[in-house]
């Protein structure tokens, strides 16, 4: 659940989770790993849906499974703000709405596209999270995997750069609390996806709740996905190295050392 000063249940996981595979992608950040924006028919002008689809498709291609027993949860601060701003500017300038913007305005549309391409008929939904969604998404996976009709949960986190409107919203959110405001180029996007199940032969890396939080995440900016990126990075290292790695804010990844798996880049 969203972390708040009054929330009582910080130990997000009741049972361990196993990571089947995990990946990240960035676009337009200026970093070394940036990729060109993948083309996604029907989705225009914004990096939100193409990048969400990219990381989801990598995971679901790497580990195909029973789509009827797979759920998907996608988290972001406020969805596809690029599309929202485009649509809003058309309204105030008196232009006719673009039906494509209508369709892609909700994250349901890209989830529906994933559903069709990968035959996923389990529950798919999107969330708005103020803080890094890693805790929310892993807790969600833990809860959903108690459903006897599900055995895999794909979790996705998206962060977009944005307009001055988004920057103003960030400033209002952080207020005087000392938290940072993201500094991303307007066209930038970051996405991470983790395919989770219960620990087993296919999941050499296990996620458990930390007995004590490695460190608070209060310095992180609203809408950031660094926690998910850290989780993916730890998952890349652990199968080869073995051992335990804490991942902020409240998790420990554990693996027995053995040859590297086919974990995604």
């Amino acid at each position, binding site marked *: *659940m*969203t972390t*708040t000063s*009054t*929330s*009582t*249940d910080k130990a997000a996981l009741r049972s361990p989770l196993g990571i089947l595979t995990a990946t990240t992608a960035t676009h337009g950040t200026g970093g070394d790993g940036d990729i060109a924006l993948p083309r996604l028919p*029907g989705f225009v002008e914004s990096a939100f849906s193409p990048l969400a689809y990219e990381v989801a498709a990598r995971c679901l291609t790497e580990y195909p499974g029973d*789509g009827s027993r797979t759920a998907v949860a996608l988290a972001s*601060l*406020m*969805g596809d703000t690029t599309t*929202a*701003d485009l*649509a*809003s*500017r058309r309204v*105030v*300038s008196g232009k*006719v*709405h*673009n*039906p494509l*913007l*209508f*369709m892609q*305005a*909700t*994250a*349901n*549309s*890209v*989830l*529906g*596209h994933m*559903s*069709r391409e990968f035959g*996923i*008929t*389990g*529950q*798919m*939904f*999107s*969330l*708005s*999270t*103020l803080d890094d969604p890693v805790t*929310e998404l892993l807790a969600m996976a833990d*809860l*959903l995997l*108690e459903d006897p009709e599900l055995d895999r949960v794909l979790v996705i986190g998206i962060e977009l750069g944005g307009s*001055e*409107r988004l920057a*103003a*919203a960030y*400033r*209002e*959110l952080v207020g005087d609390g000392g938290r940072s405001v993201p500094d991303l180029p307007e066209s930038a996007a970051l996405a991470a996806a983790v395919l989770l199940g219960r620990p087993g032969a296919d999941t050499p890396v296990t996620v458990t709740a930390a007995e004590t939080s490695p460190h608070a995440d209060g310095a992180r900016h*609203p809408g950031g996905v660094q926690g998910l990126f850290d989780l993916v990075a730890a998952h890349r290292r652990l199968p080869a190295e073995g051992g335990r790695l804490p991942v902020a804010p409240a998790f420990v990844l554990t693996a027995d050392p053995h040859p590297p798996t086919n974990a995604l880049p």
Partner: protein
Amino acid sequence: MSPLTGEVTVTGFGVRTAFGTGAEALRRGVFAGVPSFAPTTRFDTGPYRTPMAGVAPEGPDAVEDWALRHALAQCGADALDMADLPRGSEAAVLLGIAGDCTSVTRYWRNADSETGVPEGAVDRLADAVPARLAELLAGGLGLTGPRLTFTNACVASAAAIIHACRLISSGRVDVAVCAGGYLVEEETFGKFDSGRALSKDGMVRPFSADRSGLLLGDGVAAVVLESAEHARRRGARPLTSIVGWGAATDAHHIAQPHPEGVGLTRAARQALRLAGDPDGATLGYVNAHGTGTKYNDGAETRGLRAAFPERAEAIPVSSTKSTTGHMLEAAGVVEFVITMLALMDGVLPPTAGFTTPDPECDLDYVPNEPRPADLHRALTINAAFGGANTALVLERP
């Protein structure tokens, strides 16, 4: 907290629609089969194909007065009062909402003007952040439990209720306030107009052969869910129980429902299995998604037939969007309240605006007039863009 597992009950609700605030307003409108639609004056409807929407005639203006956060707070307070749940309780707050996009429109209207964004105009711009509205709702009600916000379009608040059921039945929380909200505003209105989804004749006629689309409507509601044991211990009276829930995806199209309603069938069957009634033998009513579009209503009919093939023709089905309009992210929770009232009052709300049977919509749609019914259980269905479907089974205590 000492989590108590098991049955999920509803002990309070607050609701606001175009008919006004509270259950009596729903009884006068939805349960009488009186459509709420009228030309809206909240914005200039000149550029659009219709001026019609289900908007409240009274109350604060949706654009200028931050009405969405206020309406959420009021419905939340009403729900707590009915449940007699104290402020300061450790209740989760689960919200289904898209954020208040009037703040975005306002920002760009100012920014694109010759004078730019004036000082102070960005105040409450963060109301466009859906999760922020959950924090505001929880803070305003003094609820100290965890918060989570679902944004998955027209199933968002139903998804919030389903999540609460999972949290409560698994013993993670004892109490959750689930809410949703949408108030008609220009930006979303324009998007639905551009998608040619809005009704051409100013009415919503679900399942009728002459249906031509949906109309948007105001809707805000909150419900208090808690474990039966928790309610019993504090002496709260259960209004209904939630005995089954399901959610499934069509795997068909980014916007259109599967023509056979396969995701809806799957969600309904999940919910019925959980309710211990896989054939729907105990169901006495279905509150359908029933948008009044060509695509939805035939698919939904076929999906319901497949969900309980032996019983489909015997179970009355109605779409209350025919009176409220489509409340988008709030549809799930408002229609949950309507379904609960049907159980409590023993009255089926009709499908208003029904004129002509459609061969592909061949169930009992409770046309135009309310109907007395001695109900034990009812199913409420919602669907959304991307082929998302939800189902909830409610039971009268």
